[in-house]
């Protein structure tokens, strides 16, 4: 009887990767070797379980509203973000947005209003998850955009600040409402969706900047 084949050979046998001659040798060995037969049986059971595991699993909650909030419109790249501003201006806008929005996030997540416990509701959990995602993306964007900052002129900064004011106004409204009602899931999702929408826009803006 041949020596015990290695586990890699038994795996290749299970995968049908051996030649007919090699398979015959393994068959002959396994017929007389309980250990190898047991391993082959285990591999066959595992393969059957793997095939059965290929099942659809619907998400426990409807993910579409969050996805939809992150979809950028097609063919609208000349919208207000891009009107009247050159690429460095857009980079600066992106950077300032990230900083400003991070501050909002920090206020919301790290410093709950006095007398109010940190929300442990599903809404709070949902926001924390969305926020973690936002913070991660914002950090990467900040690093990318920082490289454009030295190229900015005062006029560019003015454009940036005007655009930032519009965006901050929208954030401030959501923030005020959320501070007054921190467990309101709809508000949490609204603010998180705003963050994500801006991140998505910022990413697209960066892609339009010339590579240095």
């Amino acid at each position, binding site marked *: 009887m041949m020596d015990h084949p290695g*586990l*890699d050979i038994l*795996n290749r046998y299970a995968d049908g990767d051996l030649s007919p001659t090699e398979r015959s040798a393994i068959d002959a060995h396994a017929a007389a070797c309980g250990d190898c037969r047991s*391993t082959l049986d*285990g*591999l066959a*059971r*595992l*393969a059957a*379980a*793997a*095939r059965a*595991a*290929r*099942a*659809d*699993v*619907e*998400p*426990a*909650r409807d*993910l*579409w509203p*969050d*996805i*939809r*909030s*992150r*979809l*950028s*419109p*097609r*063919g*609208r790249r000349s*919208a*207000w973000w891009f*009107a009247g501003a050159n690429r460095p201006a857009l980079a600066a806008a992106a950077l300032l947005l990230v900083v400003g929005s991070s501050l909002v996030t920090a206020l919301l997540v790290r410093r709950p209003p006095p007398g109010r416990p940190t929300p442990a509701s599903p809404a709070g959990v949902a926001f924390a*998850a969305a926020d973690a*995602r936002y913070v991660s993306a914002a950090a990467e964007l900040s690093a990318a955009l920082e490289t454009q900052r030295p190229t900015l002129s005062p006029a560019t900064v003015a454009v940036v600040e005007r655009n930032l004011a*519009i*965006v901050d106004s*929208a954030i401030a409204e959501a923030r005020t409402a959320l501070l007054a009602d921190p467990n309101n899931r709809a508000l949490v999702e609204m603010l998180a969706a705003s963050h994500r*929408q801006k991140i*998505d826009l910022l990413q697209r803006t960066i892609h339009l900047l010339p590579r240095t």
Partner: protein
Amino acid sequence: MTSDQFARDPASAQSTPSARDAPSGASETTLVRRAQAGDAGAFEALYRAHAGRIHGLMLRLSGSGNQMRAEELTQDVFVRVWERLPSFRGESALGSWLHRMAVNVFLEQERGDRRRVARVGGSGDDDDLAADAPARRESPDERIDLERALALLPPGARTVFVLHDIEGYTHGEIAALTHTAPGTSRAHLFRARQLLMERLDQ
């Protein structure tokens, strides 16, 4: 223009009448064309048709206990699909194209996680980390099924097992996706199978 104008764009509007109005017999090809043209309602119909498959894949790749991460990944996949859909020419089935994109999204994020771990002083190698960590054992009284056993595998081994044994990718395809050699894919797979058999035999 104001930010309100963006909020009224079809892709971000809260109301998606075209999804509700989509005829039941509308072919996927028609939905794809509409979504390529910017119809978020058509894209919603595509999402609903494929969400279960993609979410199931993300659950298995990220470890079945990681529901929140699987949901985040599923969202990321469909946002990426929306961005790339204009380049979809229908040369392969949408489901296959979407599946491949989902795997890429997962692998990109996994590589990003490894880089972040490396930056804060870790090795960045999830498998090394898993090997160094104390073995995570289920209670002897607890039934171990494949899904739970999968969640206990080192990430690299789990990824290859899911892609090869569950999803049907070849070692060559996995090697291309993971920027490794087919031999590395095989080594991960054989290790995964060995660990799974040990756990399932407990």
